[in-house]
């Protein structure tokens, strides 16, 4: 059952994603050569910002109605519960971005050959962004300035994923091999899956104690 709130949770990042990408041609001019060169970075940065926008919502609702504190008392390890929440959050807020990305990339004149690489890089990368973002969301629970504060905490940590995510797309656009990029992005994902839920769980305990 998709409630109104859930629909909004899913749509806002996607719309934001689309708007941000549309801003770039407006800012730098419509010349296809320029846009094509910028495309990997622009699409990736826009997806990154859209993911970041959705982070406060990760724990906010459960925090407000007290469910979050119940989770701390649950028999299951908190890290596992956090992972479940992040997965659910990503399916709602991250996956739509991945699905929309080819369209937006075409708007940015990205060569069609690079589209599969784009989708794969975002498929591997946005979960990492959500996982790292969960740590930021957990640390800033209930604080004023929430969304912007999360961004400040989490953006520096995003840079490796951005570098290699956008890098893979740029390589694909020039016809180079992207296997190494995908392996590295996959490694980031595995690392994030292993450590981020645990760190976020520790952060939740700190915030809720």
């Amino acid at each position, binding site marked *: 059952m998709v409630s109104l709130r859930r629909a909004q949770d899913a749509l806002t990042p996607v719309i934001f994603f689309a708007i941000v990408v549309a801003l770039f041609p407006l800012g730098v001019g419509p010349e296809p050569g320029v846009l094509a060169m910028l495309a990997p970075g622009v699409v990736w940065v826009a997806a990154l910002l859209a993911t970041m926008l959705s982070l406060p919502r990760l724990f906010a609702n459960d925090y407000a109605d007290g469910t979050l504190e119940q989770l701390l008392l649950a028999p299951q390890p908190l890290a596992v519960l956090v992972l479940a929440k992040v997965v659910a959050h990503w399916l709602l807020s991250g996956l739509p971005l991945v699905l929309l990305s080819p369209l937006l990339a075409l708007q940015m004149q990205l060569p069609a050959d690079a589209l599969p690489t784009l989708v794969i890089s975002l498929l591997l990368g946005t979960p990492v962004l959500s996982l790292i973002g969960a*740590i930021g969301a957990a*640390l*800033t629970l209930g*604080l*004023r*300035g929430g969304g912007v*504060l999360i961004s*400040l*905490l989490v*953006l*520096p*940590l995003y*840079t*490796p994923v951005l*570098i*290699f995510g956008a*890098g893979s797309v740029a390589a694909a656009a020039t016809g180079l091999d992207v296997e190494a990029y995908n392996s590295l992005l996959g490694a980031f994902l595995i690392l994030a899956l292993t*450590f981020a839920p645990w*760190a976020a769980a*520790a*952060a939740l305990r*700190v*915030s809720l*104690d």
Partner: protein
Amino acid sequence: MARAEPIPSGPEPVTLELHRYVSPKTFYPLAGRLIPWFGGLTALLLAVGLYYALFIAPPDYQQGESVRIMFIHVPAAWMSMFVYVVMAGAGAVGLVWNAKLAEVLARSCAPIGAWFTVLALATGSLWGKPMWGTWWAWDARITSELILLFLYLGVMALQSAIDDPKRAARAAAILALVGVVNIPIIHFSVEWWNTLHQPASVTRIGRPSIHISLLIPLLLMAVAFMLYFVTVVLLRMRNEILERERHSAWVTELIQSADAEPAPPAAGNRPRGVAG
């Protein structure tokens, strides 16, 4: 909510005298005595280092006199990294052992480290301008320093957003630890990114092995910066301790004994504050 100290069970562990200095109450006067010594040593080493840097060190074959900027830039960059590691380490100790002094150390490190990073970035820019012709060049080291600055600012922003000192310390510690684990990954990513985009003609400052005549002032300045860090972090720690322990009897007495007003009635008349 105050938590009672856990009562140790079993035999008293054999501890070094070090154990006594782990409480804010005993550390405060110790720091006060150390500061002048470290300050003096800092001044001495800065003087010697600057003399070597400005007068003795010869100009570089390629970079001329601008190489003297290196004697500020490199020690500042080293300190910016070192202080972050100290901050993260102190944060970890504070988390694991619930040690207040470690929390105070971590909090005191943040602004100092951030300033070192700013200095490294500014001097890096000033060093790069005559070399590369632009005020900002996205080379690997400067970009990494910039990201490090953002990491520092994040820790500081998080701390100032949380009122409860305990939660602030623990949250900042987690963030600093996540950051310190990420720093090698970030550095590796930025290095890779830089080699990909960097035009072949750009020279990379500091990579070739350094001549001994340049190494001596560099090391002197590095040691001077290190001693400076110790001096300044002790200064900040004392302030932080006064702030955090303001409800304790020893701080109350300390502040009031310096008060110009006549001494208050003996402390036994009123209930003691929560002990530190």
